[in-house]
């Protein structure tokens, strides 16, 4: 599985934070403002999204 396919497989909430962070380079504060959620929520969503990406891309992350 390549990176785009892995991103496509994420839930909407996880895909949002991954794309805003990795492609648009937003800070956690900016993402919190854009998404209308607390900064801690951004941090935990990004953590879980990366865990999911690691699982999906396990061949590349081991």
């Amino acid at each position, binding site marked *: 599985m390549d990176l*785009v396919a892995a991103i496509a497989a994420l839930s909407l909430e996880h895909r949002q934070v991954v794309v805003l962070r990795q492609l648009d380079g937003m800070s956690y504060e900016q993402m919190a403002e854009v998404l209308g959620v607390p900064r801690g929520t951004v941090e935990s969503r990004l953590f879980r999204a990366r865990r999911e990406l690691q699982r999906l*891309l396990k061949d590349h992350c081991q």
Partner: protein
Amino acid sequence: MSECEWASRLGAYVDGELPEELAGQVRQHLSACANCGAELRRLERLSALWGALDSPAMPARALDRLHASVDQLTWRPVVRLAKAVCGVAAAVLIVCLSGLLWHPIGGPPAGEPRSWEAQAVAPQAADQPDSTEDQLAMWMVNGLSEKGAP
């Protein structure tokens, strides 16, 4: 085995998003926790993938579309207020013009819409993504729109 409570902070640590004091505590913890050390290495490998794999570079057009969606969210309260004001103005206009309904001054009969009217309300074909990078941008735009919908 339960997960270390520091594990969920490691992503922010790698991103440089933790305050220095907290980052120092994470560094101190990493010197003593093998599980978090392994998690940190996995995060660093994942970060490296963005450069090593077929990492999608967002084209300018897709970024513009994403930023437009963000701007729309930012301005939504203002737009709501403007709509309310327009609603009141429209009501006043309707009252003022209601007399014309009883005394029409002429004009084209109602019927088939003119060509420019049909074109104005036609769906825009350009909204279809034409690449995987565009598709990423469309996901975000659609996702943000759903999130911000009243």
